[in-house]
């Protein structure tokens, strides 16, 4: 059998429809599963005025079931038997007595009758409606006298529930299910009786309602593209806007409108934003890719005049909005021409960035200093004066009229205004780009001045919030500090910036916390790139490394190395040596350099010195010689940041180490020999630690 459920309501917000359809589907599938009712494919979708679902091949009834529960012995005390009867809901006569090796035991066989599909669905529908979770729901109507009254996203107005051609009777929120629905508000306003689940889509299509959101989207996208092409223009594709318009219409009819080309003096981003966000219009481009003075809106009906009045109305609305935008833009133009972008700066003192971190003017001051320092210290190859200037102007547009009205174009407006008054192009770009990257897929700035301001802005925010003890906790990150840190990492990597973070953070608990925070963010970021987190730990554990670009280069070389045969074997040899040393050090402190805590790394590299007078058996001498040969090479390679070469130098130790373990017993009965061999192993361990803390490497 085929089951149809349609939940009608007043207009459902477009953004909620897809998730609601999914939820409806999941809830029905779960309910049928719980009731043991077999079914085939289940499809769910939505229009603005209805959520609907069709389940194919629904079984006529669920299978009956029998459950067997073992109880107490027949001879058990009355109380125990009483308890078992209560638990199973049966009477003493209904229990079966069975012979078992332990005597006669009572068994309860609980049978459940199969239920018809109609009965199961009649019970499931009210449950689904009552349990349904909307992002925001409301009460309505006379029933709302009680604050515990029914809730739905907007008033629920009707329910169609049909199993093949028969109504599944049920009632919820004061609404009884039936077969009546509504077609399009204008084209088919009368009640429409649905014959059966199989005819639902066709009957509604005849009533000017396309129940498939995919179909509506397809019509919007293809028709809009046709209209654009017909006008010699190209549609600027926008899948989000297609979906939104499909969620606002039951019978979408795209229409082409135009606006006065004079408005093109307003920045393109502002025009597109106004059209998209405020009006849900598609923007169009001309052959050269420039914004065209035209748009496409999507109406929800086939108007009697072919849409002329609708186009006319939409053109007037857009024209009003664009004159408003132009009013703000021209106000800003007049202001910068008179006073420059600097003219906006005093107003930043009125805007609180955060109560503990001062006003935006305070922040700008700090960011300007930091941007200059980043350049002067050599970390960012930009002119310090330009970077400082860009940082000073970076937030100026926040108090411009245009950004006050359209906050989404922050930075973009700053850039336009800067160009108008002939500001350096690098400075202008930095005003726009210093917010980037905003998300994982956003562009990462690489132009030096932009990099300086973007880094300074983000680092200032991070240091400020950490210093005031407001780091992100768990799922709470109200100031988006994780995103800021990720932004810093992306910029450092993309622009290959060598920034010793410790010089910036200083010492102390807050600085340590920040370093750990960056290490965590780096692991999260690199996990997606396939870099092993244990290898990042192995390099971080060396301590002292605060240049994340260098750290990452080392990690990547390490990963390449440990995945080779040499690397795997060296790791095995290392672990064996480390275990022996650990056991020996537990017995009595030995005069070897211990862990790696104090090992400064990076440019210096902290490798053991060659042994002055090698002695011992052949394999010992071979290892000692190999160490003496490999160490200077590894050390030099690390100093030059040739990490692959450092790994290769270590790889040369693999054979001698294997030979050592095959050739000699470390724990020789003679304490002097044992000590000598342990010392050799310790040198080997320390040599490896000069590259990375192999004890952190898994496997």
């Amino acid at each position, binding site marked *: 059998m085929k089951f149809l459920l349609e939940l009608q309501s007043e207009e459902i917000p477009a953004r909620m429809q897809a998730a609601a359809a999914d939820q409806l589907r999941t809830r029905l599938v779960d309910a049928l599963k719980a009731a043991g009712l077999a079914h085939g494919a289940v499809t769910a979708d939505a229009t603005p005025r209805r959520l609907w679902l069709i389940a194919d091949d629904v079984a006529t009834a669920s299978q009956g079931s029998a459950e067997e529960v073992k109880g107490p012995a027949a001879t058990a005390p009355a109380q125990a038997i009483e308890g078992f009867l209560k638990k199973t809901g049966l009477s003493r006569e209904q229990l079966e007595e069975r012979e078992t090796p332990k005597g006669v035991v009572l068994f309860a066989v609980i049978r459940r009758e199969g239920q018809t599909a109609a009965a199961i669905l009649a019970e499931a529908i009210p449950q689904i409606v009552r349990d349904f979770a909307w992002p925001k729901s409301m009460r309505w109507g006379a029933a709302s006298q009680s604050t515990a009254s029914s809730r739905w996203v907007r008033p629920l107005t009707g329910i169609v529930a049909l199993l093949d051609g028969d109504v599944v009777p049920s009632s919820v929120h004061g609404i009884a299910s039936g077969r009546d629905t509504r077609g399009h508000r204008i084209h088919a306003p009368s009640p429409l009786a649905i014959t059966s689940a199989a005819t639902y889509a066709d009957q509604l299509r005849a009533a000017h309602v396309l129940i498939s959101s995919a179909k509506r989207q397809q019509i919007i996208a293809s028709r809009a593209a046709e209209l654009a092409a017909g006008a010699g223009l190209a549609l600027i594709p926008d899948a989000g806007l297609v979906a939104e318009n499909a969620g606002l219409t039951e019978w979408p009819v795209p229409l082409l409108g135009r606006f006065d080309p004079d408005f093109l003096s307003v920045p393109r981003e502002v025009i597109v934003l106004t059209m998209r966000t405020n009006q849900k219009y598609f923007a169009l481009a001309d052959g050269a890719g420039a914004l065209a003075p035209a748009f496409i809106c999507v109406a929800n009906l086939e108007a009697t005049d072919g849409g002329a*009045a609708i186009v006319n109305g939409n053109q007037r609305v857009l024209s009003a909005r664009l004159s408003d935008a132009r009013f703000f833009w021209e106000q800003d133009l007049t202001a910068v021409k008179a006073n420059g972008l600097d003219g906006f700066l005093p107003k930043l003192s009125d805007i609180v960035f955060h109560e503990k971190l001062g006003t935006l003017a305070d922040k700008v001051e700090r960011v300007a200093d930091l941007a200059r320092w980043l350049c002067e210290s050599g970390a960012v190859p930009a002119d310090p004066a330009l970077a400082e200037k860009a940082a000073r102007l970076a937030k100026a547009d926040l108090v411009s009229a245009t950004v006050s009205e359209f906050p989404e174009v922050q930075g973009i407006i700053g850039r336009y205004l800067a160009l108008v008054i002939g500001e350096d192009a690098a400075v202008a770009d930095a005003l726009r780009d210093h917010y980037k990257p905003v998300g994982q897929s956003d562009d990462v700035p690489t132009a030096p001045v932009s990099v300086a301001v973007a880094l300074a802005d983000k680092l200032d925010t991070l240091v400020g919030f950490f210093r005031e003890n407001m780091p992100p906790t768990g799922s709470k990150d109200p100031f988006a500090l994780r995103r800021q840190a990720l932004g810093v990492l992306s910029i450092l990597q993309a622009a290959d910036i060598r920034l010793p973070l410790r010089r910036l953070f200083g010492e102390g608990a807050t600085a340590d916390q920040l370093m750990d925070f960056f290490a965590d963010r780096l692991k999260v970021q690199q996990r997606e790139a396939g870099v092993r987190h244990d290898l990042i730990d192995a390099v971080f554990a060396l301590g002292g490394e605060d240049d994340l670009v260098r750290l990452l280069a080392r990690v990547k070389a390490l990963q390449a190395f440990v995945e080779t045969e040499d690397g795997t074997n060296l790791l095995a040899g290392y672990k064996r040596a480390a275990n022996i040393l650990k056991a020996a050090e537990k017995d009595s402190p030995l005069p070897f350099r211990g862990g790696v805590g104090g090992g400064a790394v990076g440019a210096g590299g902290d490798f053991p010195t060659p042994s002055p007078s090698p002695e011992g058996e052949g394999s010992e001498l071979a290892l000692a010689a190999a160490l003496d040969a490999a160490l200077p090479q590894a050390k030099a390679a690390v100093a030059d940041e040739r990490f692959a070469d450092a790994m290769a130098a270590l790889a040369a130790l693999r054979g001698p180490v294997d030979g050592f373990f095959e050739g000699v017993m470390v724990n020789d009965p003679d304490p002097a020999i044992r000590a000598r061999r342990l010392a050799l192993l310790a040198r080997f361990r320390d040599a490896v630690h000069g590259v990375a803390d192999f004890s952190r490497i898994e496997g």
Partner: protein
Amino acid sequence: MILALQGYWGSHGCVILQPHDLEVGAGTFHPATTLRSLGPDHWNACYVQPSRRPSDGRYGENPNRLQHYYQFQVILKPSPPDLIGLYLGSLDAIGIDRARHDIRFVEDDWESPTLGAWGLGWEVWCDGMEVSQFTYFQQVAGHDCAPVAGELTYGLERLAMYIQGVESIYDLAYNDAGVTYGDVFLKNEQQFSAYNFEAANTERLFQHFKDVSEECRALASRGLPLPAYDQAIKASHIFNLLNARGVISVAERQAYIGRVRDLVKAVADVWVEQVK
């Protein structure tokens, strides 16, 4: 148009009221909506309300923005079945041909921080222009609405521009004898923009804010929520003026909104106690 709306909603059981005689930011502030939406009584009313938004003044230079304009407000408690259908009927009544125009309900959840109120609903678009706000009140002054009221607000100037097909508010015909909206209101917009942005004496306004706040609390505690509510409305408008004068910083802004909300809440607490 106003007559058509009054006739329509009057025939659907609304009492036809007159504007509240104080400066308010929107028709919602009228006690016939704010206070009457609380409590169990049934209540259906409609009225025109002049509304003042000092910050929206443009010295009469912007064709779409005014610091003083008119709203037509309908409040129906409890919200009747098929309120959307009723609303669409009112558009027919003012002559919008829905077979030629595209009417759309676009999600717009309403929230008034100064009234401590929120509701769910839509902005209603006619050919892409917002012509009404449509809200199912869920909470007012921190109290759950029981029952829920449906509120409809029509922007009268916008609707008139639409119906008359003019590009500027000031070109609207006020009558058939050639009097335009500009003839009636342009000077008002120019002078009040200057007052709101430049001339209002802020020191005195701060003092007024204090005075009306104290009066509001005093009246509320004497069990007089209606007069107390008028004082809260005054506080709200004074705050709007101070805000337009740019003398309230971003941080202070929240604090002032909170103060007005507390006043409204104090009044509503007394009101709810009296009407339950």
